[in-house]
């Protein structure tokens, strides 16, 4: 029953689009005030999509296996929480969520922009409707979540156990809020372009949307990363996996866009650049959906492989890009009222420099992700591009990037000089000395590390100084940049000081190195609602004779029959101790991985701080002077 309602509701939702478009066009030409019918129909459309979404959730809760999506992804023994989160844990449901967020955002947009130009609101709505209709058709045609199966099966196939996890239950919705938020930026950029209204006022208003999606995207990536850390048991937080990369790309574009919009808001320059970035961000988000959903990517994330879906998204994506470029070249006129030139040493230059670096990072990630697909298509040679590629190309360029990030905010707009900037050099010296001391003491002889740590420390000191000297004037930027320095420092130290032991052990055996002794005491078995758990008990003794017990777990799920390992992580302020255990088939051995990872918690905390900066910026009334 809920499926039926959901299914019809989807069609009604699509029907609303016709009315919205009809009234919008009428309103756009004729009257001077905004027609409230448009708003009503938008809200009605939102309501239909919500009903449809709730219908799907209900089908999952009552385990209605006559619904194909539920049958494929649910099971009666699954805990309620994962029945609900299973709604968006699959292709069909997640697209419905996309649609929900699309309609939700445009409604919020309409409610929030009452005092802006009428035609700007209508045009944004119209462009957004193109995307919405595209998604409606995509869902109904290729991935309808309400397909009917007859006769009704007794039991579903179950949700992949690896997805049965609290972090992953909320990760997709949050990530989608970020992705889809960029659709508003896209539509409004097109609208502003069509009306030649790419101005300070526009920048001021769109900044809030950029920040909002940026924050959600950051959080979404953070959650996914934390999940990968403890659930996949690889003991890292970023693997340069294609699916991770496609979420990083819009993030980079969005970060760049945000910095440019600041310049646009202050100085009315970089207008075309802002427009291009707005289009790029949304294109990358759509590309992300396309690459992930089409099954083209060879990745640890695997989703349904259906060429029809891929082709549809690809065509849709290209028509959107084409539309955007068409408007950009034919409607948009750059007004050269007065040329606001700026001196080479100025805040504008600093932001531009950082822009270039961001674009460079973006292209590296893009090529690393796309190249294997490209090569497969043209020469059917199968390759993969590993982390060394990214590290080699990105790490060295972080050094000037960090320096610019420290110095930039301390420069003035238009023109700046180096008087009273003596401290900039002083701190550079201090950071260099400090990091050489660290490197020498710890006997790591990498030149690149010294320089990299120095520049990260430099940013750290400068931002800390800014906190004190500027008395929280420019708090948002300051917090984010500070967070970034903390992030780089934690990642570096984490990389340098991590240690790992991998071995195979039987119960009762001991493994010794000169620093650690691992004793495999026993295993215990336990039965849970939808899995059997095998918990190992390991006692770890370090060189100072401090003993610690770790209990990694193996879960054998009933439906589908899959083994997952749950890492046991002992977290403290300075380091994580991480242990996983895997079964070796037909042998008495267990495969053990024990890792000592310093500063893990600081990596998470620093990302949190970075996005907190964005949050401050949203709620602040006046921006920096």
């Amino acid at each position: 029953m809920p499926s039926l309602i959901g299914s019809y509701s989807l069609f009604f939702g699509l029907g609303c689009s016709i009315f919205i478009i009809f009234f919008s066009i009428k309103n756009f030409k004729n009257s001077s005030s905004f027609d409230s019918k448009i708003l009503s129909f938008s809200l009605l459309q939102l309501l239909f999509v919500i009903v449809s979404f709730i219908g799907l959730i209900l089908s999952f809760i009552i385990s209605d296996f006559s619904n194909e999506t539920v049958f494929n992804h649910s099971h009666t023994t699954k805990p309620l929480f994962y029945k609900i989160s299973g709604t968006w844990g699959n292709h069909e449901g997640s697209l419905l969520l996309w649609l929900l967020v699309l309609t939700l955002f445009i409604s919020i947009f309409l409610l929030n922009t009452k005092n802006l130009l009428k035609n700007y609101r209508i045009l944004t709505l119209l462009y957004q409707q193109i995307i919405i209709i595209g998604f409606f058709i995509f869902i109904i045609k290729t991935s309808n979540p309400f397909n009917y199966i007859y006769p009704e099966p007794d039991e579903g196939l179950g949700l992949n156990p690896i997805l049965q996890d609290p972090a992953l239950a909320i990760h997709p919705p949050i990530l989608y809020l970020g992705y889809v938020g960029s659709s508003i930026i896209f539509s409004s950029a097109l609208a502003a372009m069509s009306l030649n209204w790419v101005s300070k006022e526009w920048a001021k208003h769109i900044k809030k949307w950029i920040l909002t999606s940026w924050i959600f995207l950051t959080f979404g990536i953070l959650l996914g990363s934390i999940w990968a850390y403890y659930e996949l048991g690889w003991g890292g937080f970023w693997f340069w996996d294609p699916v991770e990369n496609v979420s990083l790309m819009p993030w980079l574009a969005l970060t760049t866009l945000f910095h440019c919009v600041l310049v646009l808001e202050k100085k009315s320059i970089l207008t075309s650049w802002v427009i291009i970035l707005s289009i790029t961000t949304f294109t990358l988000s759509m590309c992300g959906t396309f690459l992930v959903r089409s099954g083209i990517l060879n990745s640890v994330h695997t989703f349904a492989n259906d060429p029809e879906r891929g082709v549809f998204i690809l065509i849709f994506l290209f028509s959107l890009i084409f539309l955007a470029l068409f408007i950009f070249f034919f409607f948009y006129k750059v007004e050269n009222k007065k040329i606001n030139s700026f001196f080479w040493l100025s805040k504008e230059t600093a932001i531009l420099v950082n822009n270039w670096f961001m674009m460079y990072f973006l292209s590296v990630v893009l090529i690393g992700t796309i190249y294997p697909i490209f090569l497969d298509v043209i020469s059917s040679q199968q390759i993969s591009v590993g982390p060394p590629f990214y590290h080699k190309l990105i790490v060295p360029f972080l050094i000037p990037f960090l320096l610019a990030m420290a110095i930039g905010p301390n420069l003035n707009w238009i023109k700046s000089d180096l008087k009273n900037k003596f401290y900039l050099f002083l701190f550079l010296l201090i950071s260099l000395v400090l990091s050489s001391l660290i490197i020498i003491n710890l006997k790591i002889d990498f030149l690149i590390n010294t320089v990299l740590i120095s520049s990260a420390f430099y940013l750290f000191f400068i931002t800390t100084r800014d906190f004190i000297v500027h008395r929280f004037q420019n708090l948002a930027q300051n917090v984010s940049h500070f967070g970034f320095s903390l992030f780089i420092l934690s990642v570096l130290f984490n990389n340098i000081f991590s240690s790992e032991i991998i071995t195979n052990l039987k119960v009762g055996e001991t493994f010794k190195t000169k620093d650690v002794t691992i004793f495999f005491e026993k295993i215990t078995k336990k039965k849970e609602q939808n899995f059997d758990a095998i918990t190992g008990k390991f006692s770890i003794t370090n060189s100072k004779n401090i003993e610690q017990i770790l209990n990694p777990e193996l879960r054998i799920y009933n439906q589908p029959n899959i083994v997952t390992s749950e890492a046991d992580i002992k977290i403290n302020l300075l380091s994580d101790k991480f242990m996983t255990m895997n079964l070796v088939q037909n042998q008495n051995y267990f495969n053990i991985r024990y890792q000592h990872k310093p500063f893990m918690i600081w990596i998470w905390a620093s990302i949190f701080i970075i996005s907190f900066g964005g949050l401050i910026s949203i709620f602040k009334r006046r921006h920096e002077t």
Partner: protein
Amino acid sequence: MYGRKVKLRFFFILLILLTFVLTTFLILKSLEENVVFFKSPSEIKTLAEIQNKKIRVGGMVKKDSISVVSKEMKFIITDFKSEISVTYSGVIPNLFEEGKGVVAEGYLKDKNFFFATKILAKHDENYMPPEVKAAMEEK
């Protein structure tokens, strides 16, 4: 002669072009060094020479082929035409099982022996790396 502005603009464009070329060069160079090729056991048999370069081998884990001696593990990857023995010490993913698909990354000793440095994890039991699928379909 040209004005200052024109000169400036010229330099600016030159700078952009230069960065662009440099970037492309860097990326391509790095790609060349860090790309890992995928081969099936049959393809390895037809190799002309054994290079000391990292590759990936994919196929099925042969039935009753897994054996463990403390730190080291041995098993056989097969594509039902040819097979290759693999020696490995490291993390074993949960879905590593006899009769299931696997991708191992590492170095070839010769055409019959492979030292794996990594075995790739997969998400679910239905999943097969596209590379393996293609290799299996060819047979």
